[in-house]
């Protein structure tokens, strides 16, 4: 169900915790699974549960509690823009509006071609870099002026 590379990464997560506390690796394992699959289907969650020797429901609870796990399909590129107050004071909302206009979608929508999903983010701990956004959860982009947004979207389309 998951590639050997992913399983190797999950094993490294498991090794971080005491041998009788494998469930501690569930967050890391879900992240790795999502990286490979794009989102977390129920089969994927069940596979992770089995791999860690946990009840599936316990892994579901984790997957649904934390915001960065996607329990439904998202576009190939998920863009999350921070609009919390410190960012909003420095163009966070302007940046989000600009992306909405360019992609023709609102928050929580995906473009018709399945390329982009837009999300409203909460504070990413990078407020001094406002506007900030995340691409697919892991790549942070800082000081996103309109020109830099144009450039980013063009690069991501390639």
């Amino acid at each position: 169900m998951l590639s050997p590379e992913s399983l190797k990464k999950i094993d490294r997560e498991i090794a971080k915790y005491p041998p009788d506390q494998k469930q501690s690796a569930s967050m890391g394992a879900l992240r790795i699974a999502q990286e490979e699959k794009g989102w977390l289907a129920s089969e994927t969650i069940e596979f992770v549960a089995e791999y860690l020797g946990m009840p599936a429901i316990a892994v579901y609870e984790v997957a649904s509690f934390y915001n960065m796990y996607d329990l439904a399909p998202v576009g190939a590129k998920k863009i999350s823009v921070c609009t919390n107050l410190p960012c909003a004071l420095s163009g966070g909302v302007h940046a989000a509006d600009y992306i909405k206009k360019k992609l023709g979608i609102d928050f929580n929508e995906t473009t018709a071609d399945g390329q982009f999903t837009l999300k409203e983010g909460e504070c990413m701990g990078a407020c001094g870099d406002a506007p900030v956004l995340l691409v697919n959860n892991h790549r942070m982009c800082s000081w996103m002026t309109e020109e830099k947004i144009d450039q980013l979207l063009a690069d991501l389309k390639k």
Partner: protein
Amino acid sequence: MTSQGIILSGLDGDRTWRLADYVKRGGYDALRKIIAEKIPADQIISEVKKSALRGRGGAGFPTGLKWSFMPRAFPGAKYIACNSDEGEPGTFKDRDILRYNPHSVIEGMVIAGYAMGCERGYNYIHGEIFETYERFEEALQEAREAGLLGNNILGSDFSFDLFAHHGYGAYICGEETALLESIEGKKGQPRFKPPFPASFGLYGKPTTINNTETFASIPYIIREGGDAFLALGKPNNGGTKLFSVSGHVNKPGNYEIPLGTPFSTLLEMAGGVRGGRKLKAVIPGGSSAPVLPASVMMDCTMDYDSISKGGSMLGSGAVIVMDETTCMVKALERLSYFYFEESCGQCTPCREGTGWLYRVVHRIENGLGRPDDLDLLNSVTANIMGRTICALGDAASMPVQSFVKHFGDEFAFHIEHKKCLVPKDVQHEGSKIYVA
């Protein structure tokens, strides 16, 4: 990044996060000294007490005192946890510490492990900063290879290992018991206290949790002495501190300055208010701290005691600056939405109350406010405060109370005239994408 302090100073090279670079800056000298001189654990804790270091995560609790709560004779596992789940809006200091000086945190945690007799630690890193998490993992690897982590550190009989745990998007995991639940691979829901983590923490074992910046301050305290650290700040407020300055300033960023520095000096360092506009309000300690009007803030110095006398909290040291183009109702609306979204839902007053607060502020902002809405807001906050498992309930209430208290006329104007006191286009212009 500007430093007159100890954590972000000397970081002008281009690979400051590497072990070799840290060692050149005096890194791991403190740990070597402890091992070489076999300094007793008690002595380390009393040095930390002497330094008057107060927790940098928000509550400002004296670190040395916290360390002394750990049961010394307890047999079996004990843990150290570092709180790098920086998600308090306005706070972005721990990310810079981990990006540019990760070994200071590692060294601080190893020393903490030694002082409290723990063999294992975890650093819980905020979900949104994956690249920083990866860099910290690399630093851990370097430290292991150099014999600074793992079995028999530096050839002594002291062993300590340290791992990074990556969060995945939940503000509440910054609360220390939610953080422990999350490391245990569960939903991040805060625990009832007591028992406190020092007796029942990670996997039910005694655990001490400190903030990233708190741990990063430890090597200096051991190397130079608690008195030297204390002297950098002011009595009861030892050391220098990182302030994350955001919002309407010309140079947002991290500033590491002595505790007790006047706010006006910090504002000047951050380039002053954008476009020469007038300062209106400041949240001095992260979004959960009460907002203060400009006049009060300009008389404060940046330390725990002065900010608390001014009516707010130094909190995490996140200074959110708002100028005259800010609509205070809109600002509060965004914060209230955040707490509503992030409540873990365990306690009814918090789950229901944060929803109420958001909906009422939202309707005021959108011209649908009712004459008794301000009283309603105050009564909802009164029903949340002190009645919840964790401090998120209070954190959601204090902004509401303080915004209404200091800027009540702006709220009243909204309710009466069904529009903002500050015209929309002025707000828009004031908060647009800003390039220094």
